[in-house]
């Protein structure tokens, strides 16, 4: 297929990700995509926007976790420290989120360190805020919890599949 510029068809009106508002970002996030416009507005008043400098840690491995973060702008490197040394797990970009397990885990300890790669804007959503939503607006809270359960379920499924594969390939000894 020949690629040539179709300027007429170019989406000139698409919002640049870098200019998107918190409401837009929340709407695009899988956890909050089922919320209506009014609920998204309420949520945008609840969440906290934080700006991190290049190399600044969002949290450390071993810290107690109280909430999740969503990347509004920039990127985050997730790494773990083990006896063998420090290792990068993944790099997350705009729209991605991390730390969501601490929203439901009563004694959550961060299992990795999250570090801003460049100047990064994050939106923080914390457990007391989720509890307040459930108290004040249960319907909205249930929507978020349902999506959160789906995300955690998906992660569990993928982890199980990977462990099964590792066992099959003999990488991990079955108990």
């Amino acid at each position, binding site marked *: 297929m020949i690629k040539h510029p179709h300027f007429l068809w170019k989406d000139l009106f698409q919002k640049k990700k870098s200019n998107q508002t918190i409401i837009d970002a929340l709407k695009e996030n899988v956890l909050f995509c089922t919320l209506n416009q009014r609920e998204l507005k309420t949520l945008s*008043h*609840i969440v*906290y926007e*934080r700006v*991190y*400098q*290049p*190399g*600044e*840690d*969002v*949290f450390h491995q*071993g*810290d*107690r*976790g*109280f*909430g999740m973060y969503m990347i509004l702008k920039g990127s985050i490197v997730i790494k773990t420290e083990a006896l063998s040394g420090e290792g990068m797990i993944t790099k997350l970009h705009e729209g991605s989120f991390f730390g969501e397990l601490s929203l439901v885990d009563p004694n959550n*300890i*961060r*299992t990795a360190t999250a570090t801003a790669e460049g100047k990064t804007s994050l939106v*923080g959503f*914390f457990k*007391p805020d989720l509890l307040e939503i459930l*108290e*004040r*607006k*249960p319907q909205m809270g249930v929507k978020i919890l349902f999506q959160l359960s789906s995300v955690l379920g998906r992660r569990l499924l993928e982890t199980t599949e990977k462990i099964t594969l590792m066992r099959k390939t003999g990488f991990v000894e079955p108990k």
Partner: protein
Amino acid sequence: MRAYSNKSFRRDMVKLAIMFSVLTGTLAVFVVTPALSTPTLLSVVITMVISPSVKFLERKEIPRSLAIGGIFFLIFSLLSLAGVIATQTIVDEWGSFVQKAPRYFEEAVLKLKDFETQMKESYPFLESVRVTDSIVTWGNETGQWFISNGPALLGDLFTWMLIVPILSFVLLNDSRRIKKKFFELVPNRFFESTFMVTTLIFRSLSDYVRAKIIEATLVGLIVGIGLWIVGAKYAFVLALLAGVANILPYVGPFIGAAPGILYAGFDPASSHLFIPVLIVYGIANFIDMGFIFPVLVAKLVNLHPLILIAAVILGQQYYGLVGMLISIPIATALKVIVREIFDAVYQTHQSRSERDLSGF
């Protein structure tokens, strides 16, 4: 990374300094300006009390501002209704009580003095103890204070009646915005821990204030109904005093019971009511200590009784009645901070998998 660390450390320290300057500055302004701090504190207490009702209405899909407005309208309507119905009775009772209270006090002092003299004759080692003198001094000082500050207090009360509802409305409506503004000052590295500690402190304080207000209302109701049943005069005023005094930890029930017992003991027309009034206060305190306090307050505070007593004594030592009033909330807040610091510094933080592995 090192360059970042140094730069980030400096920036965080500047942010921390700004945060502490704002906090201490605000605190200093409040401490030196009672005209500002008292209505603000009252508004915070009202906010804490009303907040669950606002949440309840929000659950019914009513917008927050409308819910707050509705609750304020209801409160003002009820207060106006109560004003029309009960004010005259309370004002009459209050006037008569205030008129007769000094006589009850003087008679009580005379009887106490006789009792003290008899005790000193029987037990000479009590010679240096001067209970009656201390009570007379306290009574005179309190009386003088009310005489000299009375008009100013009434003026303040009128100002508060205007300011407190407005401030409470603003606090209820904009508390989240204020909270967000405060957290903008917190450096990233302390953000999550500060967020959790302040949330826990605010929750414990709100729960404590609500529990104490409910406790005081129930005690006031029990005393009021009891006094009304036994046919005592000033049932409204004595119930009000018992309820308000009950907010003070430990000594509150005794302070609250004193006016009623004095009235029944020293008013010749009501001397037959002395035992029934004593029983009413006894029952109210028994219900309070046996059921209301353990169910409502003790569970929330969750501090060792010795620590609570020490906190109340310390509060009384340095700030008198106000110190006693704020001692338990401050002790509760300190407990949250100390626990968080202990967890952060001394607890070994391991993930579940690490904990499981270390168990092998």
